[in-house]
């Protein structure tokens, strides 16, 4: 390790061996920053009211789901519009274990993820032959089939009425309020982030990216395309399943209404806005898409009070704004918020001598 001046920012990444090259965190300053961010989130519930904690919980769950989808779409290049249904599989699998069979949440959570991974992998099988639009339609079929099964298998899922799920308990403490659930979500979200960041430093992760960049070339290099495509589906669905299981137990109730195609599209929008092929992008996108309707609503309220009658218009605008944002991002910054943030950082790093 070369000695560095901690008060001087680096203007780029300079490494002299593979070990340094593979590091997740390149600068010693950045390590402090990461620790500071984690510390901030540890004390976050004590700094704000419970309402903000509940919003943070929704964001945390969205982050897990969005990272999962980004592994599949952004890193492996396989489009999926069945992500919402895979969340449903995880939520129902975990829900059946806790509510119907009375098992512990701590068993149900990973099992929910695994069941989702299994089903997701199964629906990933067509990806060997199908690409692009055709694969999109195949995953749409997954969405429709899973929704149909949930609605029409009342013996298992209680049909459209939905299931009531118990709150998880740990050592006599019931995680039934926002703050206690916040820490559960925080820990799982951090684990999800760390796993995803590390995944792309492994052979599997690099194989995913090779498949994305050019699957023929990847096959020529000896990568088993089928295996990695299905693995990507499974890993992505595992994330979705865990997010779904958390979501169900956080809300305390699940019904087929929760896991519609709208959810799938919302998650696609998250990773497009956040940045395809970037773990940080999935995080930014999840924050952005969860906060957008809330911020728009607060705006609508604020304007509605001063200009009567405008509230309706503003509320209806939400959907339009949502669509417009996706189009604008696709045109002006296809790499999403993650790229925008990098641009900002680079601007300051290189200031005043940008090249």
């Amino acid at each position, binding site marked *: 390790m070369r000695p560095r001046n901690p008060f001087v920012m680096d203007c780029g990444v300079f490494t002299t061996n593979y070990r340094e090259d593979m590091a997740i965190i390149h600068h010693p300053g950045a390590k402090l920053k990461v620790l500071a961010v984690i510390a901030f989130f540890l004390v976050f519930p004590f700094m704000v*009211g419970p309402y903000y904690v*509940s919003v943070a919980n929704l964001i945390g769950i969205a982050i897990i789901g969005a990272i999962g989808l980004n592994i599949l779409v952004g890193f492996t290049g396989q489009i999926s519009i069945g992500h919402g249904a895979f969340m449903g599989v995880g939520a129902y699998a975990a829900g059946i274990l806790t509510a119907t069979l009375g098992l512990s949440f701590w068993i149900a959570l990973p099992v929910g993820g695994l069941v989702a991974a299994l089903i997701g992998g199964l629906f990933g099988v067509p990806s060997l032959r199908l690409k692009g639009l055709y694969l999109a339609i195949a995953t749409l079929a997954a969405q429709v089939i899973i929704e149909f099964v949930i609605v029409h298998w009342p013996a298992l899922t209680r049909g459209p009425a939905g299931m009531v799920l118990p709150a998880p308990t740990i050592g006599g403490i019931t995680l039934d309020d926002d703050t206690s659930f916040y820490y559960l979500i925080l820990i799982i979200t951090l684990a999800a982030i760390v796993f995803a960041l590390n995944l792309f430093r492994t052979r599997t992760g690099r194989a995913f990216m090779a498949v994305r960049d050019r699957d023929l070339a990847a096959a020529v290099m000896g990568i088993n395309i089928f295996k990695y495509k299905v693995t990507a589906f499974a890993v992505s669905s595992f994330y979705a399943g865990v997010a779904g299981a958390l979501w169900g137990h956080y809300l305390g109730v699940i019904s087929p*209404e929760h896991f519609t195609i709208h959810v799938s599209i919302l998650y696609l929008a998250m990773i497009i806005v956040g940045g395809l092929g970037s773990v940080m992008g999935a995080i930014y996108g999840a924050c952005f898409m969860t906060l957008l309707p809330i911020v728009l609503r607060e705006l609508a309220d604020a304007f509605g009070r001063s200009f009567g009658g405008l509230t309706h218009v503003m509320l209806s605008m939400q959907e339009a704004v949502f669509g417009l944002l996706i189009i604008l991002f696709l045109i002006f910054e296809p790499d999403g918020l993650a790229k925008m943030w990098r641009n900002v950082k680079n601007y300051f790093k290189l200031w005043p001598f940008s090249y």
Partner: protein
Amino acid sequence: MKRRGLLGLLSVLLAVALLAGGCGGGTPEGEGPIVIGGIIDLTGPTSDVGMPFYEGAKAYEEYLNSLGGINGREVRLDFIDYAYNIERAKEAYNRLVKRTGVPAIHGWGTGDTDALKSFVARDQIPYLSGSYAEYLVNIEEAPYNFVVPATYTDQARIALKWVKDNWPEDRAPRVAFVYNNTPFGTSHLADAKAFAEELGFEVVEDQVIDLRALDATTQMLGLKNSRADFAIIQGTSNMAATILKDARKLGLDTQFIGLNWAFDEKVIELAGAAAEGYIGVVPFAFPGDDVPGMADIKSYLESKGKSLKDINQKFIQGWVSAKILFEGVRRAGDELTGVNIRQGLESLRDFDLGGLAAPVTFTAQSHRGTEYSRLAQVVDGGVTYLTDWISYK
């Protein structure tokens, strides 16, 4: 060029930061207005009935304030649109309870009311709702939920009872159920079917139609093949209109009976001639009804330069619901806690609504407002009542 892009980007970030910062600040406590929360669908699949309901509830708030509010304090109903999305309903609930700090809420859909009922019970927030699902009157599971009119199950039972009493033929009537596959659409099914069989009916067919469907041909063909004499619709106005139009197109002679949300002026407007003869279970009055309770609404509308022609039945429903909620608040006394408002609501005995709805009774043992409803039929494009307030018992 690059710089300009970055500047634009920075200004966007700045704007977002400002917006986020601008959301702070709560409602002051004490002698300010009494703020009651509301969760409503103004932009989602049930917004066709959600919008007039919202307007009716807001109208009652305004009317009450014009009379001096409650104990001299202004009242406010803060509605949040949740687009029929349960996650957003939960967010809205947290916003209302944990940030605004409301002591009571008027909710909307069956799915979200059900999802929130355990939180409502824990936070002790009396919760009226636009959902009249049977399981919300289960006092053990939902101790803070109140249902104002007859529940969906009771409505379906009233419809079946009426069919039984008016069935001219010797054979058992064939009855079908048309609904949407949501908690709202299905909460009455099991009980209503059991009741139909108890009455000796033949339950022949289930047809599922999406709330937003614009075509119901397949389902109506199925219904035609089942030769159902009656079909009970649980859905909203738009869905009912779609059903009636397609049923007419295919020449069905099934008599359709819509429950509360599937029968209003909008159905007549949208379905036109196809709505002729359509029967509805109507727990609330129509604007054209000559009942004493209508005078308040009329005087409110006139003060706004409007008339009863500008509103529909769902407006009255919102008005009545808000009236009952605020009556509970009034009876809660000076200390406006959820527990007190609950007790206030539980002190309602045959609370007279001037014919806008059946008199409402809540007790500590039962949050089932009433078992009575009326049946009405579309005749010459208008609504004609078939019965007075009746119960299925």
